[in-house]
C-alpha cells in the first residue's frame, strides 16, 4: 500500500524562528519525489514534518495540514508513534543498532509495536525485508552477527530493511547516499526504483544527478537569506525541472550559478 500526501499551507517553526514558510504540495502514491535546495533552505525540516519527527526537537511546531489519504497527521487524536509507523524514515548516516544482530536490527521496529511474534514469522519477515532491501544474498549466512560489521552501503540497506519491516505507506529518505561510495549509491538508487512499486518515496538529496535519475517529481526549496524562512520555489516533473525550469532561481541553482 502507498498513500497520497497532501500538504496545505504549512509553516514550520523552531521556537520563534520560522524555518519553512507556506508550503503546499501534493505527493502522489507510488512515486519518487526529490527535494533539492541549498543547505539551510528547510528541505530536511520539511521532510521531518511528514512523519512528525520534527516535533521531537523542543520548541518546534507546525502550522497547517499534512494529509495522508485525507487524514491530517496533526489532528489532536493522532498518535505520533502510529504516524511514524506509517511513514518510515532513513537517515543520512547509516544508523543500525550497533550491538544488535542483523536479524534483530530488521525486527527492531516490529518488536516495538508487537512483541509477541512467533519465531517462524520473525524469520520470514527478516528474509522478506532483507530481500526487499536487496541485502538478503549478502547477509543470509551471518544474520546473527552485529549490523555494525557491514559496509556503509550494506548498513544503509539494513536501515531500509528495518524501515520496510513495519510495512509503512511512505518512506522518507534524508540524503541516504551522501555518506556512501558510488557503487553503494547505485545499489540504493536501484532499490529506490524497486521500492517505488509499493511505497510513496520522498528523498532529500544534494546530488543533482541523483535527483534527476531517481525521481519523478522534484521540489526546489530556497531561502532569501540568513534568518529568512525557506520556501518552496518550484515543484514540477523532474524532466521539466532539469530541462526547462520555469523559475530563474531554480535554473540558477541546478546550473550551479549563484547570486
Amino acid at each position: 500500500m502507498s498513500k497520497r500526501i497532501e500538504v496545505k499551507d504549512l509553516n514550520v517553526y523552531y521556537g520563534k524562528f520560522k524555518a519553512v514558510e507556506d508550503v503546499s504540495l501534493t505527493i502522489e502514491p507510488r512515486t519518487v519525489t526529490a527535494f533539492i535546495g541549498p543547505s539551510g533552505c528547510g528541505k530536511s525540516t520539511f521532510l521531518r514534518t511528514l512523519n512528525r519527527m520534527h516535533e521531537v526537537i523542543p520548541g518546534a511546531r507546525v502550522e497547517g495540514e499534512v494529509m495522508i489519504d485525507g487524514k491530517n497527521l496533526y489532528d489532536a487524536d493522532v498518535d505520533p508513534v502510529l504516524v511514524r509507523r506509517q511513514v518510515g524514515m532513513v537517515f543520512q548516516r547509516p544508523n543500525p543498532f550497533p550491538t544488535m544482530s542483523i536479524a534483530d536490527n530488521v525486527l527492531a521496529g516490529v518488536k516495538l509495536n508487537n512483541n509477541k511474534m512467533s519465531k517462524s514469522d520473525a524469520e520470514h519477515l527478516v528474509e522478506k525485508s532483507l530481500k526487499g532491501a536487496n541485502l538478503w544474498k549478502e547477509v543470509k549466512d551471518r544474520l546473527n552477527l552485529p549490523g555494525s560489521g557491514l559496509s556503509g552501503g550494506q548498513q544503509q540497506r539494513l536501515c531500509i530493511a528495518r524501515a520496510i519491516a513495519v510495512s509503512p505507506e511512505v518512506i522518507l529518505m534524508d540524503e541516504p547516499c551522501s555518506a556512501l561510495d558510488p557503487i553503494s549509491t547505485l545499489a540504493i538508487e536501484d532499490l529506490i526504483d524497486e521500492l517505488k512499486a509499493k511505497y510513496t518515496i520522498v528523498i532529500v538529496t544534494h546530488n543533482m544527478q541523483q535527483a534527476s535519475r531517481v525521481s519523478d517529481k522534484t521540489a526546489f526549496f530556497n531561502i532569501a537569506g540568513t534568518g529568512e524562512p525557506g520556501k518552496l520555489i518550484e515543484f514540477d516533473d523532474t524532466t521539466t525541472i532539469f530541462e526547462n525550469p520555469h523559475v530563474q532561481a531554480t535554473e540558477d541553482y541546478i546550473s550551479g550559478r549563484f547570486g
Partner: protein
Amino acid sequence: MRDVFQQELHEVQQRLVEIAELVAEAMRKGTTAFQTSDIALAEQVIEEDARIDELALTLDELSIQILARQQPVARDLRVVVSALRMSASLERMGDMAEHLAQLTRYRFPDKVIAKGLRSTFKEMGELDIKIAEKLIKMLKTQDMKFVDAIRDIDDQIDALHLSVFDKVLSEAWGGTSMDTVDATLASRYYERFSDHAISIARKVKYLSTGEWAPELSSEEA
C-alpha cells in the same frame, strides 16, 4: 571551475557562428561558380568544404566533452544538445554548396542550367545566400525575428523548387534528359540548403522555449 564551463558554452555558440559564416561564403561562391561556370571558383568551394567539415567535427567533440565533464542542465543542456544538431545541419549546408560546385565542374565549360530556367535558379541562389546571412544573425543574437524571416525565405524557395518541377514536366520543356536531371538535382540542393536553415531555426527556438520540435508558425515544407 564554473567560469571555465561558462567559457566553454560561450565558445560553442561562437563556433556555430564561425561555421555559419563559412557556409554563407561557400553558398555565395558556389552559386556564383554555378551560374557563371567559373571552374576555378568551383574548385575553391570544393576544397574549402573540408574546413567546414573539420570545424563541425571539433565542435561536436567539444560538446561531448562538456556533456561528460560538466553534466549541464536546463538552458546549458539545451545549448549543448542543440549545438550537436546544428553543427550537423551546418555541415550538410556546406555539402549542398559543394554539390553545386561539383555540378559546375562536371558540365564545364557548358552552363549547368538550360536557358529557360536560369532566372529561376538565379533567384534561388540569391534567396539561399539571404537565408545564410539571416542564419548568422540569428545564431549571433538568438533573436526570434530571424526565425520568422528564415521561415519566410524558405517558403519562397520551396515555391521556386516546385516551379522547376512544373517546368521540366511541362509539354513546352525542350531540354535534354541531362538538362532535366541537372535542373532537378540543383533545385534540390538549393531547397535542402534552406531546409537545413529551418532545422537550425527550430533548434534556436528550442533554446528559448525548451520545446524540441517547435512549430515555426505559418506553414512549412
